[in-house]
Each structure stands twice: as structure tokens, then as C-alpha cells.
């Protein structure tokens, strides 16, 4: 196999919190010892709830914020070792698609100019050539070239996200980080943008990191997923194995909470309670305060990511969870364990 496109090694990001003039600096660990590898054309989903550090992970991967520890390598070159010229090349080959397309577009600049900007900035073409390319790209994402002279506030949410996509794709990057690209859109528009995303990424041979809280959307968009809880990857593997038999109680709870069409079939897995509890991060398993199956060992020992069947799981009880039952129509029930 060829060398990986993107590698994250022991990536940790601590945000320092200033709590007062004389108080000690404390830190919030947004991302903790994350290892990730992405091959050319590979598509990975990073799944977690808000506050799990998934957006910070995306920013670290693109070198928008420096890691506290660890490193990110793109085509074998570390961000830290990258010189100015290499950065420009890296920027040409990567892109970011953010959650809210309205704030991701410059309100003062017309659409055509925004889509064309990366082209002439990187001297791929002159300004006129960049405009032509922008018109072509807008048509590829399903917008007419007549939209070029519009401003972001004159478009609908779905159109704006297509513009953001056009700008991201215009230099045919090798890697895109999608950070919740459709969660700000109406459900009907979501489906359109998702199918556009699928066909474009296939045509362009794109590798991407798809950050989302929504397991439904990610299912048909990625090859692998990594489930993140409080900055740690708790389960990762290819999408099929995880849908077949998720081994981490958090993943199972996320899967069970996906609404199904069949009212008779419900996730049996007890739903997780409460919100992210940052205080549990210092010792033991970070998830234990919300985990119905936590045992004494979970409080004492941090579970490390280890191979279990076809995936990697960070749970002391990974082997205990049974395979879900498949009902008619493909919906699954996720049986829990006896709670002691």
C-alpha cells in the first residue's frame, strides 16, 4: 500500500483557561492522544456530541491551531516541519467546509469572487481564468453561473452550502475536512447536499474527514468511523463492522438513539443520561459517569484502545456486549447488559 495521506500521532490539544489574576492556569483537554490515519481517497467519519473535541480535531488536522503534543503529517511531512512554500502547497491540497454556510462566506464579497479566490491566490490561473473556473465549478455543484454576481445574503441555505463546496473543491484538493457540513440545513436540503457530496467526492477521488454528531448521515458517506468522547477515540473501525456490532457502550447508545421507522423495534440499550462531564477526565474511563455498565475497574484504570474483533475499542467490557438483533427492514435493536 502507498503511504498514508494524513497521519495524526498522539495528538493532544489543551486549551489554557485563565481563571483570575492570582489563580493558577488550568487547562481544558479538548483532544487527547488521538491517533488517526487516512489513506488516499479514504473517507472517515468522526462522530461525537458537541463538546467532544471533534471540531478541534479538524482544526488540528488542517494546521489551523498548533497541537499541545503530538504531530500531524500530510504526505509524510509534519505541520511543524513545514516551511512557508510547503504550507501554500498544503493549503492547495486541503480544504475546510464548515457548519454554517452563511458565516463561512464573506458577506461583503460576491459569490463569483469568493469561489475564484483560491485559484488566483495560488497562481493556478489569472483572475479572468479563475472566474471561468469558478463558473464551471458552480455548475458542477448545481448552481448557475448567473449566481456569480450574487451576495451570500441573497441565497438560500442550501445554495450557500453549494457555494462553500464549490470553493472547497475548486482546486481539486486531496483532503477536505467537513465540519458538520449539513447540520445547519433543513432536513430536505440536507439530503440534496449529502447526495451531491457523495457523487462529487467519488468523481474527484477525494479523501475526507467528516465530522458529525449524526450517525444517520455518516453511514453512507464514509468508509470508517471514529467515535470520539471527551477528546478520546473510544471506538474505531470500518463502518460496516461498527454498524454490525458496536462494542463500546457509547457507540451502542448513539446507534440505538437513531430514530427508526418501525415503532415495534426500539433500542433496548438504556439511553445515556446527562451531559458531558469534564470532571471525570482525570482518572479512569471518562465515560463512566454516564455509563450504565460501569464497574470498579472503570474508575481505576483508563481503558486504552485495543483490538476487539474487527475494530478497536477503548472499553474494559468490550467483549461483554452482544450482537444486535436485526429486525425486519434492517433496523436493529441493541440489547444491553444486566446492570449490576
Amino acid at each position, binding site marked *: 500500500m502507498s503511504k498514508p495521506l494524513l497521519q495524526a500521532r498522539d495528538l493532544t490539544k489543551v486549551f489554557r483557561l485563565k481563571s483570575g489574576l492570582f489563580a493558577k492556569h488550568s487547562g481544558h483537554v479538548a483532544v487527547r492522544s488521538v491517533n488517526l490515519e487516512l489513506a488516499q481517497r479514504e473517507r472517515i467519519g468522526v462522530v461525537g456530541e458537541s463538546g467532544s473535541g471533534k471540531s478541534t480535531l479538524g482544526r488540528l488536522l488542517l494546521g489551523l491551531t498548533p497541537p499541545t503534543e503530538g504531530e500531524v503529517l500530510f504526505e509524510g511531512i509534519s505541520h511543524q516541519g513545514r516551511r512557508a512554500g510547503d504550507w501554500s502547497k498544503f493549503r492547495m491540497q486541503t480544504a475546510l467546509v464548515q457548519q454554517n454556510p452563511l458565516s463561512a462566506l464573506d458577506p461583503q464579497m*460576491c459569490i463569483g469572487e469568493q469561489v475564484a479566490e483560491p485559484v488566483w491566490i495560488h497562481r493556478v490561473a489569472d483572475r479572468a481564468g479563475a472566474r471561468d473556473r469558478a463558473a464551471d465549478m458552480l455548475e458542477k455543484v448545481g448552481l448557475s453561473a448567473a449566481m456569480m454576481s450574487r451576495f451570500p445574503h441573497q441565497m438560500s441555505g442550501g445554495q450557500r452550502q453549494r457555494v462553500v463546496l464549490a470553493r472547497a473543491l475548486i482546486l481539486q484538493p486531496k483532503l477536505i475536512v467537513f465540519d458538520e457540513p449539513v447540520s445547519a440545513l433543513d432536513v430536505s436540503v440536507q439530503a440534496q447536499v449529502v447526495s451531491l457530496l457523495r457523487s462529487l467526492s467519488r468523481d474527484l477521488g477525494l479523501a475526507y474527514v467528516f465530522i458529525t454528531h449524526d450517525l444517520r448521515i455518516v453511514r453512507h458517506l464514509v468508509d470508517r468511523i471514529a467515535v470520539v468522547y471527551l477528546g478520546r477515540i473510544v471506538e474505531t473501525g470500518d463502518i460496516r463492522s461498527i454498524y454490525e456490532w458496536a462494542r463500546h457502550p457509547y457507540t451502542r447508545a448513539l446507534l440505538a438513539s437513531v430514530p427508526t421507522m418501525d415503532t415495534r423495534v426500539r433500542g433496548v440499550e438504556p439511553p445515556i443520561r446527562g451531559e458531558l462531564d469534564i470532571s471525570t477526565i482525570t482518572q479512569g474511563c471518562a465515560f463512566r459517569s454516564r455509563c450504565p455498565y460501569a464497574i470498579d475497574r472503570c474508575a481505576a484504570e483508563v481503558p486504552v484502545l485495543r483490538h476487539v474483533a474487527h475494530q478497536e475499542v477503548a472499553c474494559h467490557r468490550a467483549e461483554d456486549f452482544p450482537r444486535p438483533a436485526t429486525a425486519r427492514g434492517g433496523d436493529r435493536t441493541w440489547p444491553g447488559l444486566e446492570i449490576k
Partner: protein
Amino acid sequence: MASFILARAVRALVVLVLTVTFVFIVLRLSGDPAQQMLSDHASPEALAAFRANWGLDKPIPSQYLIYLAHAFKGDFGTSFADGRPVFTVVAERIPKTLLITVPAFVLVMLIGIPAGIFAAVRRETSSDKAIMTATVVGYSVPNFLLGVALIYVFAVWLRVLPSSGSSTWQHAILPVITFALAGSAAIARFTRSTLNDVLGQPYIADARVDGVPEWQVILRHALPNAAIPMVTMLGFNAAGLLGGAVLVEPVFAWPGLGSGFVRAVNTGDLNVVQAMIIIFTGFVVTINLIVDILYAVLNPKIRLQHHDAS
């Protein structure tokens, strides 16, 4: 766009007429001008003659209509103090005030905006902190006090600049600096915070990810978006210069509108006070009109909305 400007201009005119009315009524309610001019010991005959002479014996509504009719023709009455037409008294002071406020405003922009941009770009560095500390000083010292301090240093101690009067261009230097220091401190702070807000926007992150060099990010994306709130703030600042003239001009014995206004109030020169308030209002209304128009030019949301409508 044209209809937008017209609508704003009509609104400005309405504000002006309302101000004239308000000022007229309030000044008539705040004491008897005849008594103020002639002192408490004046005889009833003298008071009556004074009132008849200046038309103050008529009922207030008809006084108002007469005043308004004359004002539209540029006749603001006669100064009680020296018998000259108010128009002349005020008109000879306007250029004097502009002579110090316009250069001050230019300096505010030339110092405040670049300092603010520099501080925002170098955020959290020692140069940012140095600029911000300097602005706190410039911002918190009252301008008349600053004027006195400047007179002490440059006129009394170093003896390099004149302290009062307006006979040479050197006389303008200290008042201009007094205005410019406080104004540019405020503008520098505002520029920095506005630019910092804009630099935190997702479209700025997007421009950086797409490889737009940092100086182009500032120039092409951040500054145009920061310009809209800054125009508003600069408008406030320009209007504030005129209010400041009332405090600063007397310090330097600068014969502009500000010191003229103070003198007219002290002597109870009703017609001059009235005309000067109208002039001040006229300036502020004009500045607001310019701000509104610039707003529309800078902001595609306003510009295009009115373009679509017309």
C-alpha cells in the same frame, strides 16, 4: 440608491426642524431674556421697551412662526450683545472651528485606525499591550485637562508654541493635538476590537485554510467587514469633536463656535445661542447622513435591497 439617499435627506431635514422647534420652546421657558439682559434692577418700562423692541411681547406661537419664516431666509435675528446680525456672528466663527476639528479628525483616522489594526494583528503581543495601555491614558484624561497640560508643557515650560488665540497656524497645533489624542485612542481601541471580532469569523478561517496569505486576509476580507461598524464609530467621533469644541476652545481662547457658544450662554444672548444650537444640530445631522450613505455603499445588504426596490 438615489431613493435611499433622498429618504435619508428628508429625514435629516425633519430632525433639523424638530430641533429648531424644541430649542425655541425650551429657551423661552428657561427665563425671561429681557430680565437676563437688563439685570434685576431694570425698571418695568425698560423691560417692556426691550421686549417690544425684540418682538418678545408677542405670544410664543407667533414668535415661533416669525422666527421660522426668517430662519428659512437665513435671518436668525440680531445679537442682543453687540447688535450685529446673528448670521454674521455665527458665520465668522464656523471656519475657525473647522480649522481645528477637520485636521483633528484626519489625525484621528491616520493615527487611530493603523494603531488599531496593528494591535489586532499583533494580538496578545507586547506591542498590542503597549498600544492598548497608551489608549487607556488617552481615553480617560478629559480633553480640557489634556489641553491645560499641553499648554503647560509646550507654552509655559518649553515655550515653543503659543497658548491662546488664533492669529497664526501655530496657534492651531495645541487644540488639534488635544482633540486628536483622545479621539485616536478611542478609535484605536474600537478598530482593534472590531477587527478581532471579524478575524474570529468562520469565513476568515476559511480564507486561511484556502491559502490566502495573512495580509490579504486582513485587506480583502477583514477590513471591508470591519469598515461598517467603524464608519458608525467615526461618525460619533466627528460629532463628538463639535461637542468637545465647547470645552476645548475656551481653554485655548480659540474664537470658534465652542467659545462663542459659552459666551452667548453666559451673557444670555438668546438669538446667538439659538442659532448655534441649530448649527451644531445641522453638523451632527449632516454627519449622520454621510454615515448612512457610507453604510449603504459599504454594505451589500442595504445597497442591493434598495437597488432591487427601485
